[in-house]
Structures are given as C-alpha cells and as structure tokens.
C-alpha cells in the first residue's frame, strides 16, 4: 500500500525541458490519470515514476520511501505498456511468471538447465506457476497460458500485459496508454474492466492517456498536463466545470469550449464579438479577458441583446438527441460551437441567422495570462438591469 509524492520533479533532454518542476501527491489507493496531448511530458513523468528515466532534479517517494536512484525492480511498481511489451518468444505463462522468477529465484536458480536441480527451485517454481494460474483465471485468460503473444488478439494481449503487472501484487500500477492500440468498442469494455480491477485491488493506479473520455470515466482525480507543466489536478467533474486555466478549459470537453476575447468596458461589463456580457465586478477596467462558454451553456434566444451572440449558421451536426451548431459570429475568430437539444432546434438550418444566449453565471472567465478569474461577488445580470440602455445601443 503506497501513496506517491512527486516533489518538484523536472526533466530536460539537453536544452529541451520536458518536465518543469512538477509537484503532485497521489493518495494511497487512488486512481489518478495524467492527461494531456502527446509531447506534454506525461509519459516522461510516468517513466520517471517507474525508474525507467531519471529526473534532472526533484525527488520522488513511493509509500514512505524516497525512491530516487532506486532501480525499477525495487520500487514495487508494475507497468502496463502501450505496446504491451510482451516477450514474443515466451508463452503467456512465461511472460507472466518472469517478474516472479526474477524476484523469487536466485540467479543460480534461474540458470537454464542446471537451475532446475538446485535445492528449493522446484518448490518456488511451483508456487510461481500457481500464482500465475490464479491471476490468469481472474483475468479470464487461463486457457491462453500456453500460447505465444503472436497468437493472441489485441484484447487478449492487453489482458496478458495487465496480468504480468498484477501477478506480483505491486503497490502501484503504472499504465502508459494501455488502451490506445485497441479498437473503439474494446476500448470502452477494457475501460470498465480496468476500473473494476482498480476497485478490486485497491492499490494506487497512475494512468497516462491523451484520451479525455478515458480520463473522465475512470479516474478519481485527473491531472492535466501541458508543455511539461501540471495545470490542474482535480476530480473529473471539477476539471470540466471549474477549470483553473484557459488551456485546461480548451483541452477538456468535446466539442471544444468557445473562448471569445473581450475587453472590460465598464465595471461588470465586458465587450466582445458584437455584444456585451455581464461579468463579475472587480476586474480591472480595460483589461483583456477570455470569455469561455461551454457548448451546452448556450440556449436559443429570440433576438439579439446582451449576453447573446448572433451569427450565421455555418454547419449543423446532428448527433441524435443533440445537435452541434457551428456559428460564424462577427469578431469571434473561430466559429462558436453550441450544443442544442434536437427537439428544440428542429427549424435550424445552415445559412440562417441564429441568436444564442448564455446565463452569466455559466461564463468561464480567464485573465490575459490564461488564469481563471473567479467571481468574488455574484455577477449582476445586465439583461435585467434597466439602466443599460446606452450599452444596448452599442450592441451592433
């Protein structure tokens, strides 16, 4: 049983910095996902945790033990690789037995031929075989023990890789994009199985992926990484609903959040893309802010006005119960994407003009440096305010 403490771990390859002083505490038994686009440093962090790469600076503890300089073998971690990394010349049983053989047998006992006859080898080997069989049964691959990896399907190989990690009962499971080589259907199934496995084993899982649906569905907490930095660590729902950084808001969520660049015109009012939005007071006048709106925060509006975007429909994507509307709004840069209930938006067609309103409390505001601006006081709703008339005139 072990939690993990990552303290200001940095890694650079020559002049390129891959990890910038990442600090993170992972609780014992937690399922933590490192999420980020490729090249963000998440795999490097995992490899450093495993001991496969060595950090340039900073310190790591697993359990209560500092593991800097400790060999991967002695860290009590197991790892599942993206490519599964099964030994192609060994049977499934031999693949799964290897970590146990390396630990329980001395190097003399492991000698080919002669090792078998040394005292104790037989008993240990039998116990290993027993452990392997039990683990394999638990994963439903008991009947595959005599096969070689080349004869297995992708899903079966995946289970063998998990089995090889599981068999020695490590304190920490490390998983490096273990599902990305599977087809979509199998991926959803294995997602549930890994989550289930975590519940059953109750040990710490550190899971690396670039797929946000994996991160959102499986994790206790998600750590979003970008350019070697840890941007936010929080439970999945919070990551989505309450991002601390513009980049997190942009990375999480599909379709992507729309962020409009605006200027604080007056206290409590920001101007952008031909309209004005109610914002919390206390933001410096004249400052540049990003106004983020999740697709599902939009509602259909009758006419143009404050807190309402108007534009022409560029594309309508029917998704069954919902539809995604891509709206070209003058001054917004990229098209705005809204998610509307299909039954309320039957009349919508490409080329039409559409008004989309947003409740001010659903805006996600970001400062010029990308940090989230949180309301210190409740946002006054300017649509309900009578003396905003001059402002209305400014609305184009």
């Amino acid at each position: 049983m072990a939690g993990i403490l990552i303290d200001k771990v940095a890694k650079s390859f020559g002049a390129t910095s891959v990890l910038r002083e990442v600090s993170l505490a992972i609780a014992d038994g937690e399922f933590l996902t490192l999420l980020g686009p490729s090249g963000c440093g998440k795999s490097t962090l995992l490899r450093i945790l495993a001991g496969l790469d060595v950090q340039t600076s900073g310190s790591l503890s697993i359990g209560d033990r500092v593991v800097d300089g400790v060999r991967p073998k002695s860290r009590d971690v197991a790892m599942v690789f993206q490519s599964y990394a099964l030994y192609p010349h060994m049977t499934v049983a031999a693949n799964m037995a290897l970590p146990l053989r390396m630990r329980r047998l001395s190097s003399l006992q492991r000698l080919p031929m002669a090792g078998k006859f040394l005292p104790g080898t037989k008993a240990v080997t039998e116990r290993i075989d027993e452990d392997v069989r039990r683990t394999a049964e638990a994963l439903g691959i008991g009947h595959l023990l005599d096969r070689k990896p080349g004869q297995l399907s992708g899903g079966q190989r995946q289970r063998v890789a998990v089995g090889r990690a599981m068999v020695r009962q490590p304190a920490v499971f490390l998983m490096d994009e273990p599902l990305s080589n599977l087809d979509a259907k199998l991926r959803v199934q294995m997602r549930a199985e890994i989550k289930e496995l975590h519940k059953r084993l109750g040990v710490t899982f550190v899971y690396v992926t670039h797929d946000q649906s994996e991160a959102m569905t499986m994790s206790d907490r998600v750590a979003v990484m970008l350019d070697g930095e840890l941007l936010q660590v929080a439970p999945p729902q919070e990551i989505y609903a309450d991002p601390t950084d513009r980049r997190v808001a942009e990375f999480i969520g599909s379709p992507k959040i729309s962020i409009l660049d605006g200027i604080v015109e007056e206290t409590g009012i920001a101007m952008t893309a031909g309209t004005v939005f109610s914002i919390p007071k206390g933001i410096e006048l004249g400052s540049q802010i990003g106004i983020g709106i999740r697709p599902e925060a939009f509602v259909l509006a009758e006419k143009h006005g404050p807190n309402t975007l108007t534009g022409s429909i560029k594309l309508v994507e029917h998704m069954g119960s919902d539809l995604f509307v891509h709206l070209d709004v003058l001054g917004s840069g990229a098209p705005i994407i809204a998610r509307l209930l299909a039954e309320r938006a039957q009349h919508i067609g490409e080329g039409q003009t559409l008004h989309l309103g947003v409740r001010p409390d659903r805006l996600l505001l970001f400062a010029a440096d990308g940090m989230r601006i949180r309301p210190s006081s409740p946002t006054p709703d300017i649509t309900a305010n009578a003396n905003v008339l001059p402002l209305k005139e400014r609305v184009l």
Partner: protein
Amino acid sequence: MSLAASTTAAETGAIASNGARKALQRHRIAETFTAWSLAGPALVFLVTLFFLPVFAVFAIALTDWQFGASTLSFVGFSNFKEVFADEGFRASFVNTILYVVIVVPGTIILGLAIALLIESGKSMRTFYRAIHFLPFMATLTAMAIAWEALLHPTIGLINQTLVTLGIPTANWLRDEDTVLSVLAAIGIWQNLGYAMVLFLAGLKSIPQDLYDAADIDGADMWLDRLRTVTLPMLGPVTMFVFIVVALRAFETFDTVQVLTQGGPGHSSEMLLYTLYRESFQYLRTGYGSSVAVVFLIIVVALTLIQARVMDKKVHYQ
C-alpha cells in the same frame, strides 16, 4: 411495336456486352504482349545463362563427354563414383566442412559480440562499424596477398611478434596442421563485419519497450537483459546470418587460389577450388561437373533451409 423495340434493345445490349468482352480480351492480349516483351530479354538470358547451364552440368556429370569431343554416351553415376573414390575430393569435401564449422560460429560469435558492444554505447558507432566492416568489401585477392606477407615465416608480422613474445612460430601456410585454420581465420576476419551489420540491424529493431518491461520485471542486470530480451529477439537474425555465412564459407575460393593452391598436399583444398582445377586446369569435364553437382546440392539445401526459417519468423512480428 413495343415488342420489336424491346427486341432491338436486348440485341443492342447483347452487342454492347459482346463488344465490351472483346475490348477486354483485346486489352488482356495487349497487356500480355507488353509484359512478355518487357520481360523477354530477361527471360532469354535467364534461360541461356542459368537454366540451360544447370541442365548442362547435370548432363555432363552423367555422361562421358569430354571438352571438345563430338560424341557422348550416358554413363550414369560413374563420374560420381570416381569423384567420391578420389582421395583429393574427399579431402576437399572434409576440409570444406571443417572450414565452415570453424568460420560460421567464429563469425557469428565475434560479429554478435562486436555488434552488442557497439550498440551498448552511443559514441563512435559509425566509426567502429566502418572499421569492422572494411574487410568485407575489400578485394580479397589483394588482401590475401597482404595476409601472405603477414604470415610470412621469417619477415611476417605474426611470426615476428611471436618470436618477440617467445612463443613458437610456424610456417602457417606451408604446414598441414595450421593451413586450414589460418584460412578459416581469414574467412572470419572477412565475414565478421557482415554478421555485425546484420546483428546491428537486428538490435535496432528490438523495441525499447521490451527492455523497459524487463527492467520493471526485474531482469535489469546485463546478463538477464541479454537472456530475456536481446538474444531471443535476435533469434531469426542469427539463423539468417548462420545460413548466409555458411553459404559464403562454402564458396571460399580466392584465398585458396592465391595463398595455398590447395596445398600442402590436399590439406587446404576446398570444393570450389577442386571444381576450378579439375574443370579448367585438368579439363576433366565429367569430374568437374560431378563436383559442381555436389556443390549445388549443398548450397541449394542450405538456401531452402534458410527460406523455411525466414517463413517461421512470422510469429515474431
């Protein structure tokens, strides 16, 4: 009216499809004609320079035909009997096998060891690869002459060194006991760079993930990594190197011709040299062809084994 119209339509359809079929046929014939005219020269030369000669070798081996003679008669296997009864051929055969048995493992072990050493670090890889590969592409006839100078009983570097170290010397190329080993050493010297390059390619294709997995599984010491990942993953390459080097060793000719002429006695005679001498110096065509057939059988057998092995490589993907 309507009936007539429909008949016409059907006929038109039939004619159209008939026309299409004809066009297709014409297209096929054109493609066949093009293909054969493109492949024609190659085919003619393959037949005249490979297939007819092979049949000719068998024919000559089974008849009493002599070079320049206008008559021939079938003599069955009597040429082969003569060949196998000949002490010279038997010596040549045994020498060739012995030579292969020394050269193949020597080349593989040294080539693999050097490849492992080169791959274990990052610096000067290209330099080391170039040096060790050099003998493989240098003109062996010329290098054999350099070797002769090195092996010279009095002024050769090797004996000079041995004298300095107080080790007994030998007349390497004139001594029945040493000559074959010396030729084998030259064979290893020439081929190990080739094996090394093939092993380097094999090492490069081992996924890093497997070494990472071995690290985590606890196979992290040098020998364990070698045993768990490197050597098994090199299995197919090794088999391939084995066959290719064996084939090259069987075909050794230049060093024998330049350095020993098969001597002293028959002690360094090898199959290809025997084939050359009997066919072209003594003009014993029947004998020479029988040697050629024996040689052909060995080489083809080795190649077929190689093909089988390469097929089996599949499950290693």
